[in-house]
């Protein structure tokens, strides 16, 4: 009963034309071209196993590891781009590559669980809560903080998606882990599917909530004023939920050919593209303004290393990056494969006109980071970048901060080090502020090193001159 897969058709329905990628790479609309009243959107992209710093970093024009500096990316040729980030060269005008960050607070948290601690600290900036069986957040993740500030009341506040086994990085608050949707069809249902869904319980969600609201009205007459107010606070939210469901079912958005999306999930890249298309479509129709893509492990064939070692990226490559240069190269190509996926996403958003003018990408900020600094579970070199957000961020730049400015001891792949890079919380603050959230810290506002020094985590990233 599904219509045949036709993503191109869907893209063309959105006005992108047949050659979405081709249009995109020409950079039809430059950054900062549109900074007017169009809604801002945010995408959080998180991948696994960190990267390999030496293959990720860039040292243009004789720059070294010393000092804080920044370089204009527009002047860099394709060859000057690092191996891991090469696929992003066409979109360099939108990038802000951040070199010199650390996930230092994760190191100060409970022992072990380095992946889990990492994916929590990366996006909440806060301590973990360990129940003895699972790790949960102690505060909301960046995507939820942004959604809280920019969501439309009659639309989905945010969309949490995973490709294969993505890490659970989205959290509404203390111990409130949000489920990630990995099935494009179910994700489609959440966004567009109230009328198209085949699940009677989902279809009838509005009636179910209507019933609950009627019961609330029946009950409140029996209650004392204070209790009535408490119940009203809760059921106002139920009403809003219902309003959202109604809003979503009545939204005008051409989804005719989008139904085909559900079938395009053969292979990692196709799955990623399905999810990216879904996000683009949701943004285009303003059905949501915040999306998370949590990227699970890439199979080795997908980054060109199936011939070397078959099996999973984790044990076969990630753990060996400091022992074996082939593994380090493999994990760089692993990062490059994700960079190519990000390039696809940027290209896609560039190719779709924003109803308010410009392209969707002109009003979108994408943040990309990982659960770890490197494959051997280090937090010392946390490699991250942003794409878009030109209305607030200094895009088209490579920013470098000299390593060792922060007195927190980290366990790395090469032994223990006593000082590390800038705590990554400053990047989270920059992003939140770019999205219009008026905060001066995300998660922790300070920590103490073991030696007793107080480390300030408020404010955005310092200037790099």
């Amino acid at each position, binding site marked *: 009963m599904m219509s045949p897969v036709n993503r191109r058709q869907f893209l063309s329905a959105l006005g992108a034309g047949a050659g979405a990628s081709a249009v995109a790479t020409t950079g039809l609309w430059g950054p900062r071209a549109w900074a007017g009243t169009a809604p801002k959107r945010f995408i959080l992209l998180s991948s696994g196993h960190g990267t390999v710093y030496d293959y990720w970093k860039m040292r243009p024009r004789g720059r070294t590891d010393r000092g804080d500096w920044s370089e204009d990316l527009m002047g860099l040729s394709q060859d000057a781009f690092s191996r891991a980030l090469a696929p992003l060269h066409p979109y360099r005008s939108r990038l802000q590559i951040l070199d010199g960050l650390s996930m230092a607070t994760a190191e100060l948290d409970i022992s072990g669980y380095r992946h889990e601690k990492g994916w929590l600290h990366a996006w909440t900036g806060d301590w973990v809560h360990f129940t003895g069986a*699972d790790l949960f957040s102690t505060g909301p993740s960046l995507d939820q903080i942004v959604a809280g500030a920019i969501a439309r009341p009659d639309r989905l506040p945010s969309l949490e998606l995973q490709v294969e086994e993505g890490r659970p990085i989205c959290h509404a*608050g203390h111990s409130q882990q949000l489920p990630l949707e990995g099935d494009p069809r179910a994700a489609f249902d959440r966004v567009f599917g109230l009328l198209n869904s085949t699940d009677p319980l989902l279809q009838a969600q509005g009636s179910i909530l209507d019933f609950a609201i009627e019961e609330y009205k*029946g009950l409140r007459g029996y209650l004392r004023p204070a209790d009535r107010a408490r119940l009203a606070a809760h059921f106002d939210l139920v009403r809003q939920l219902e309003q959202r469901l109604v809003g979503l079912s009545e939204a005008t958005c051409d989804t005719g050919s989008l139904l085909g999306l559900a079938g395009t999930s053969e292979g990692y890249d196709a799955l990623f593209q399905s999810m990216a298309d879904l996000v683009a479509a949701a943004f285009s129709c303003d059905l949501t303004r915040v999306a998370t893509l949590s990227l699970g492990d890439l199979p080795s064939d997908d980054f060109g290393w199936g011939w070397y070692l078959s099996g999973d990226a984790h044990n076969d490559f990630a753990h060996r990056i400091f022992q074996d240069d082939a593994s380090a190269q493999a994990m760089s190509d692993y990062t490059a494969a994700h960079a190519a996926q990000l390039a696809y996403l940027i290209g896609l958003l560039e190719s779709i006109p924003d109803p308010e003018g410009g392209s969707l990408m002109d009003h979108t900020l994408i943040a990309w980071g990982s659960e770890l600094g490197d494959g051997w579970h280090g937090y010392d070199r946390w490699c991250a970048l942003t794409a878009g957000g030109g209305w607030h961020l200094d895009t088209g730049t490579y920013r470098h901060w000299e390593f060792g400015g922060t007195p927190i001891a980290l366990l790395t792949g090469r032994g223990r080090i006593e000082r590390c890079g800038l705590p990554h919380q400053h990047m989270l603050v920059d992003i939140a502020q770019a999205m219009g959230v008026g905060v001066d810290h995300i998660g922790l506002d300070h920590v103490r090193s*073991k030696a007793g020094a107080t480390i300030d985590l408020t404010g955005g990233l310092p200037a790099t001159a």
Partner: protein
Amino acid sequence: MPTRRPSALLLLLGLGACSDGVATPAGQAPLRRLTPTEYNRTISDLYGFGTEDWPEHPEDEDLGSFPQTLPPDIRIHGFEGMLEGQVASPYLAERYANVARHYARFAPEAPRFWACTDRDEAACAEQSVLRFAHRAWRRQLTPDEVKRLTTAHQGFAANHGVETAVQLSVAAILSAPQFLYLAELGDSATVDAPGASDWAMASRLSYFLWDSMPDAELFERAAFGGLSTPGAVEEQARRMLAEDRAREAVVHFHRQWLDLESVYSTRPDFEAYATRYVTELSDPEAWAEEANEPDDPFADQDLEEAWSGALVGIRAGMVREAELFVERTVFDGAGTLEALLTDHHGYVTEVQGITSASTAVIYGVQPDQVHDSHRITEQFTDGNIDYELVLRPATYPADQRAGLLTQGAVLASHAHPVHPAPVLRGKFVLEQLTCTGMGQPPDGAEAAAPPDTLDAQSTNRERLAAATGDPICAACHDTLNPVGFAFEHYDSMGGWRDTDNGSPVDASGQIQLWGADPIAFNDAVELSRALAGQRRVYDCYAENWTRYALGRELRPTEEPDLVAIQDAFWATRGDVQELLVSIVTSPLFLTQTPSETPEN
């Protein structure tokens, strides 16, 4: 006692209840939401699947069937289920809708769902839905509710098959405020809902003593007005306390009172403790050699992972020890608060996982102090790795351990990674055991604390005394520090130590309780024994339980009733089960209505 039973249908339609006259007005308790614990247990009792027998999720087996995660309450005095800690959020509203839908899918298969056998008959489905609502909402339905529910169900049935219609009705019932909240109709509702106060009483009892919905006997009592006298309430409470769910509920109280699970978030330092307490890691170099290729530059992280694996088991073992200790003491042992604070028995845990570990090393017990014949074996998973916990009853040295305050879970959860934390331990004792609020530290207090490093040049006590000697600090620390110093014989993982940084440990101090003479002690064992004789501690424990039973803060005008409960508790020398009985028969619990209604 009732002599005749009205039929289920009569009950549902509001025709069958006999109101024998309400001797004690039940009032109307403030509207409290089911906690996540209560929600899931209620579903379990409504459906009747054993915990192991839940079918797989019809759509997605990865989702797991039971229990479901719900947004936690904000803890007040450490407790969930407190009125003041229950706020609603957009996420909460969406999560409740999704969880209701999730559980609704299982209803047609549930052993306790169907009220009749002709499952394909429309009338049977309707009757079952009405009975389900009656049980889920924990009282007789009002005529309006019956009407609305019947209409809704018939609407669903007109568009769907029986099974789907049932699922939709169940999702609706579970989304309604009557399910989500302990919504009492109050005495004024007797025309619409005869015996409303008896139904309310059934739920008050069951959610207090069982963390779940009333059972069939409580429902039957409620239907016949059989919960309207203190005597009837007491009889039910005693029956309920004899059931296993009461054990779990009493443990759940202590889990929160002692904040046992915070031990999971502790970060004991590898260098300070791994070699001391995990035999396998006692020689890191040898371990590294065995586990890795020689000269492996990454041994550091492997060691850390091994340490982390050992800690998972040690922490779980400590929590289970405290839970078992509470359960056995309250229900199978002396049954008193005094025993909870002085008994020097415990449970040592041996863990088999990626790294094996045993708390026997931490407690310093010899094999002849461990009783293998009564060992308890439990499975445990941290999500990735399965562990086997073996808990064995142990007799700890009487001069080193006395009750809960000297058990690993409490000690380790109030400690810094390297050194124990007298401030946290003192604050814990003062606040949780003596109800002496210490407030929050002023800005800058944390920065002034001594660094938690291995290269300290003096004892922990000396460093803290020096750091808090300033008169401004001393205002609070003169109270906090001496209580915390009592625990200086225990390191950050709860292990006993005679020396600190080469000097003999000084654990002496004194505690000044409100309205009592200062009590001097030489160590935590003496402190625990002293606390076990202090009226203030009994009063505080009873106050915590009373607040928990009501799910709200007490008002000043309620003090006389609280004092009566405290007097009775003191008179029994701290019998915990009797305390619970005296709470449920107190006017506070029976009438509930606070004299001042909180506006929040």
